[in-house]
C-alpha cells in the first residue's frame, strides 16, 4: 500500500475514534444527569446500553488501526494530529462536559441532602483525567513540545487511558446501589455495561502495551 492510502485510513480511523470518544462522553453525561429513580427505567437502560455499545464497537477497531499503523506502517496520522487543534477541542469539550455533569450531580446530591461521597464518583473523575490528558497532548502539539507526543506514540498514553477505563469501569460496577445498598454489578441489567467497559479498558491497555513493545 502506498503512503496516500495509509494516510487516508489513518485520518478516517482518527476521525472515527474521536467521534466514538465524544459519543461515549456524551452518553456518560446523560447517564450522570439522570436522577436515581430514572436510572432503572427500561428505555433508559436500552438507550444507554445501545449508545455505549455502539461507540465501543467503532472505537476499539479504530484505535487498533491507529496503533497498528503507528507500530508497523507509515505514521502519517500523527502529522495530521500534530497540529493539536482537534485533540485540544475534544479534550476541552470532555472536561467541560464532565465538570458540568459532576456539578449537576452535586446539585442533585445537595438537593436530596446526600453529602456522602459515593464509590461511583471516580467515574466522572476518570473522564476529567482522560480529558486533561487529551488536552495536554493537544496543547503540547500546538506549542511544538514533542515530549507528550512521544509518550502518546509509544503507547504509554493508550495504556494509561486503558487503565483509567478499567479502573472506572470496575469502580462503577462495584458502586453501591441506592435502593438496597448492594453492588450494582450484582444486578443482571447492569452486568453487560460494566463488563463491556472492563473489556474495552483491557483491550486499550493491550493495544498500548503492544505498541510499546512493537
Amino acid at each position: 500500500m502506498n503512503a496516500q492510502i495509509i494516510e487516508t485510513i489513518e485520518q478516517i480511523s482518527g476521525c472515527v475514534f474521536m467521534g466514538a470518544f465524544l459519543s461515549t462522553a456524551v452518553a456518560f453525561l446523560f447517564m450522570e444527569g439522570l436522577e436515581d429513580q430514572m436510572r432503572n427505567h427500561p428505555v433508559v437502560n436500552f438507550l444507554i446500553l445501545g449508545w455505549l455499545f455502539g461507540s465501543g464497537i467503532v472505537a476499539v477497531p479504530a484505535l487498533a488501526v491507529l496503533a497498528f499503523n503507528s507500530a508497523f506502517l507509515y505514521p502519517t496520522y500523527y502529522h495530521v494530529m500534530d497540529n493539536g487543534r482537534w485533540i485540544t477541542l475534544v479534550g476541552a469539550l470532555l472536561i467541560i462536559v464532565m465538570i458540568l455533569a459532576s456539578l449537576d450531580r452535586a446539585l442533585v446530591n445537595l438537593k436530596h441532602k446526600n453529602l456522602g461521597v459515593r464509590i461511583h464518583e471516580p467515574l466522572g473523575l476518570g473522564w476529567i483525567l482522560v480529558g486533561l490528558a487529551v488536552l495536554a497532548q493537544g496543547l503540547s502539539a500546538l506549542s511544538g513540545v514533542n515530549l507528550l507526543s512521544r509518550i502518546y506514540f509509544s503507547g504509554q498514553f493508550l495504556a494509561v487511558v486503558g487503565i483509567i477505563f478499567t479502573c472506572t469501569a470496575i469502580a462503577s460496577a462495584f458502586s453501591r446501589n441506592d435502593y438496597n445498598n448492594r453492588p450494582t454489578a450484582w444486578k443482571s441489567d447492569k452486568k453487560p455495561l460494566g463488563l463491556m467497559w472492563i473489556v474495552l479498558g483491557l483491550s486499550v491497555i493491550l493495544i498500548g502495551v503492544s505498541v510499546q513493545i512493537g
Partner: protein
Amino acid sequence: MNGVILIIAGFVGEIVVAILGIVNMFLSRGFDSGFKRHLLLMAAGVICTGMIIAGAIWAGIDIYNWVISHVH
C-alpha cells in the same frame, strides 16, 4: 468521502445533543418534567452514534474498493 461526511455529521450531532442535554438538565428537575425530552435527546445521541458507525463502514468500503481497483 461520503462516509467521512457522515462521520463528521454524527460528530457535530453529538455536540449539539450534549449542549441540549446540559440545557435540559439545568432547566428541568423531577421525574416528570424533562424526562421525555431527556429520552428524546438520548435517542438522538444513539442515532448520531449510528451515523458515526455507518460512516466508518461506508468509508471502509470506499477504501477497500479503492485498494482493489488499484491493485488489479
